[in-house]
């Protein structure tokens, strides 16, 4: 009964999505206020039914309803409750339902926080989001129904053991919030094209939404990277796997969009470029969904799939891209680029950064799509190696990082190159010194280290220069602290996010430069020396988990002759699927991480053991977390709220005028 309610709720939600698309957009075009007024209540209604549907699927998982095919394939009665809940989005059908739920959360949020916007814009934005919802509802109902019934099974086939992990329980919701969040920017862009008006006020409305989506996407990607690092046990944190790329491309364009929106907001320029980026960011999110869900990829995330699904989502992707590009081609000339600026100005630096980010995204797209296209055309399989991705990414990003230090210091419209150069000399010298001295402290020289260190310290020192310059230029006799408190939150957010990039670069640089990896055969009592640490293998014991049994190794680590920690990596066999799973043991410090994983038993009491020493590796994800925090801080700036209030007052005043 409950699965049928869920299925039925989905059908109702689809109908509501159709209403949500047609009435408000038509109403906005024809100027019918009563049609436009349906946008908010219908969107809320759709949310209620999608949430109900999601609750029904969750109920099937928690209640061990093994007459639902999807629950049979992704759950088991022995599964701990947390993973029963996360199992709901552990497969294709459920993750689509999560996608739609997220889309509805965003739509309702827009409906809620847009009271200050004019009715036509709100109607168009909600209408466009309704259109996106139609596509995904149809996709689910026609090709991937999560509520499909089969004769009752005695038990489920279990969730893939790789996914039974707390990190993976929250990674997909975060990532999807980011992906789907760009639909808001997309809807705002389409609404602006339809309305033919792109101005500073429009940019100011779009900004917090775009930043919010970017924050979620940053967190989602970082969580995924962290999970791959400790769960897959290959010792790397980024593999340029097609699915990683699929999430990274919208991130690159989203980053460009945030900065472009800032220019449109502050200066009223970059207008059609901003719109194009907003269209691209969401199209790439859809492309990512297509790549992951269609089964064209060979990857951790690829599901065994029928081709029907791939063609459906490809068709939807084509519709979205073609419609939005045609609309863009038709309306963009009317929108225009906006005001002029000099060759050396904050605008031009931001534009160059934007172009570089877009070019990087293009290269990632090439490396991701080319193998697929090549296979379709010639039938031959090929893949593109990680070294290529690493290389072009470093080459294209280094100038962006350099500009990151300069841009915020330069004046809008027209900057003064010699003044900026003078101001930045101390920052430049500081970064060079740090880059040349630190490698000797760390004890070892590889070319990647000084380059990476220079870029990281350049961000820190130029950000500090920026702060000092800004405080000095403030008039008044306030104390330093008071002056700092007067800085707006979006400014602190910018500095914080930029420094997050610096911390990320430090982490990457030290891991690339100084990590150590060893695979060894160890018998009881054998030791391995790595850096200042001695690892001693003390054999394995059998342990029993809730839904698995495991061989648990004990590896005693000592540092400078003193006992440091005992690491207990496991080799698990899950009861249902009977496949071995490596569970690494990790000891994290502020500056480094020790990582131990069991390979295979080699006869007697010996095992193959994998031992890693990873300096500063946690800084990689901490850097991402700091970037996300910076985004949150910027989003919470009062200028967005003040703008809203001001707009409300104007609207109120206009209404009063009209009523007189």
């Amino acid at each position, binding site marked *: 009964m409950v699965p049928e309610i869920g299925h039925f709720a989905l059908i109702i939600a689809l109908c509501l999505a159709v209403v949500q698309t047609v009435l408000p957009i038509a109403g906005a075009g024809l100027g019918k206020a009563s049609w436009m007024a349906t946008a908010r209540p219908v969107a809320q209604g759709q949310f209620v039914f999608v949430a109900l549907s999601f609750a029904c699927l969750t109920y099937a998982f928690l209640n061990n309803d093994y007459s639902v095919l999807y629950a049979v394939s992704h759950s088991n009665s022995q599964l701990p409750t947390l993973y029963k809940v996360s199992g709901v989005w552990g497969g294709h059908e459920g993750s689509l339902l999560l996608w739609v739920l997220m889309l509805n959360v965003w739509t309702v949020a827009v409906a809620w926080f847009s009271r200050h916007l004019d009715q036509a814009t709100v109607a168009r934005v909600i209408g466009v989001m309704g259109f996106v919802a139609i596509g995904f509802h149809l996709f689910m109902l026609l090709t991937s129904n999560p509520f499909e019934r089969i004769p009752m099974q005695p038990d489920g086939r279990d969730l893939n053991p*790789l996914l039974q992990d707390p990190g993976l329980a929250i990674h997909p919701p975060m990532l999807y919030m980011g992906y789907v969040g760009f639909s808001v920017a997309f809807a705002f862009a389409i609404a602006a094209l339809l309305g033919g008006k792109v101005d500073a006020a429009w940019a100011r409305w779009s900004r917090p939404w775009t930043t919010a989506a970017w924050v979620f996407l940053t967190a989602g990607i970082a969580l995924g990277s962290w999970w791959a690092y400790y769960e897959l046990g290959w010792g790397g944190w980024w593999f340029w796997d097609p699915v990683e790329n699929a999430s990274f491309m919208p991130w690159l364009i989203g980053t460009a969009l945030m900065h472009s929106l800032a220019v449109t907001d502050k200066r009223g320029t970059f207008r059609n470029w901003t719109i194009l980026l907003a269209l691209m960011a969401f199209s790439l999110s859809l492309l990512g969904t297509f790549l992951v869900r269609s089964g064209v990829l*060979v990857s951790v995330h690829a599901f065994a799939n029928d081709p029907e699904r791939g063609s459906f989502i490809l068709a939807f992707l084509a519709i979205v891209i073609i419609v939005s590009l045609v609309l863009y081609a038709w309306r963009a000339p009317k929108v225009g680029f906006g005001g002029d600026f000099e060759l050396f100005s904050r605008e031009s630096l931001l534009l*160059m950064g934007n172009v570089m980010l877009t070019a990087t995204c293009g290269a990632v797209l090439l490396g991701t799509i080319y193998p697929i296209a090549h296979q379709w055309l010639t039938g031959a*399989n090929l893949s*593109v190696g990680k070294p290529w991705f690493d290389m072009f990414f470093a080459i294209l990003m280094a100038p962006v990082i350099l500009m990151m230090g300069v841009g915020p210091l330069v004046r809008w419209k027209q900057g003064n190159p010699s003044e900026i150069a003078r101001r930045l000399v101390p920052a430049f010298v500081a970064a060079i010194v740090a880059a040349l001295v630190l490698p000797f402290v760390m004890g070892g020289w590889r070319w990647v280290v000084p380059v990476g260190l220079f870029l990281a310290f350049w961000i820190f020192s130029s950000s500090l220069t920026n702060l000092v310059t800004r405080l000095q230029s403030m008039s008044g006799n306030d104390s330093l602290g008071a002056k700092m408190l007067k800085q707006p939150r979006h400014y602190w957010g910018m500095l914080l996010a930029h420094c997050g990039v610096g911390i990320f670069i430090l982490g990457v640089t030290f891991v690339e430069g100084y990590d150590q990896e060893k695979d060894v055969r160890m018998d009881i009592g054998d030791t391995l020396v790595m850096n200042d640490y001695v690892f001693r293998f003390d054999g394995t014991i059998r342990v029993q988990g809730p839904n698995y049994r495991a061989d648990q190794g004990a590896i005693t680590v000592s540092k400078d002759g003193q006992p440091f920690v005992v690491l207990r990596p496991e080799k698990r066999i899950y009861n249902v699927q009977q496949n071995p799973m490596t569970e690494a043991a990790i000891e994290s410090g502020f500056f480094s991480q020790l990582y131990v994983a069991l390979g295979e038993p080699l006869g007697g009491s010996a095992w193959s053991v994998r031992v890693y020493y990873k300096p500063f590796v946690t800084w990689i994800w901490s850097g991402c977390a700091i970037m996300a925090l910076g985004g949150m801080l910027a989003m919470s700036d009062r200028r967005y709220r003040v703008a809203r209030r001001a707009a409300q007052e104007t609207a109120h005043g206009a209404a009063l005028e009209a009523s007189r």
Partner: protein
Amino acid sequence: MKPRQKRLVFVAAGVVGIGIAATLVLFAFQQNMMFFFSPSQVAAKEAPVAKAFRLGGMVKEGSMQRVADGLTVAFTVTDNAEEVTVMYTGILPDLFKEGQGVVAQGKLDGAGVFIADEVLAKHDETYMPPEVAKALEQGKAAAAMQNVNQTTVIP
């Protein structure tokens, strides 16, 4: 300079910069492409000798052997028509099993042994990488053809 000229310089510099970057990226792209070959293609000498490529197929039952150091393994990858011996030093992925699909990345040595520096196994019980599935299918067809030929030749 007039604003118009300035803009021209700006655009030209941008185009040249992007052009150089694109050329470098595409050149390196060519160098980094890694092709996929099945054991039959390796036997037919279609695979490069000094350059890295990916080899895919099934791990032959009973073919896995450990070399004395305990960490190096040798196994046979087959597509049911031809076989290639693979050597790999390190820890194999969790789902590596005899009789299951595998993709190995590495180079052929002079003796025709494939020295792998990476071994990838699938992550999901039911999932088979499409190229491995295709290679196995073609191998099966080739083997069937051979059998037909043999039966017709013998009498």
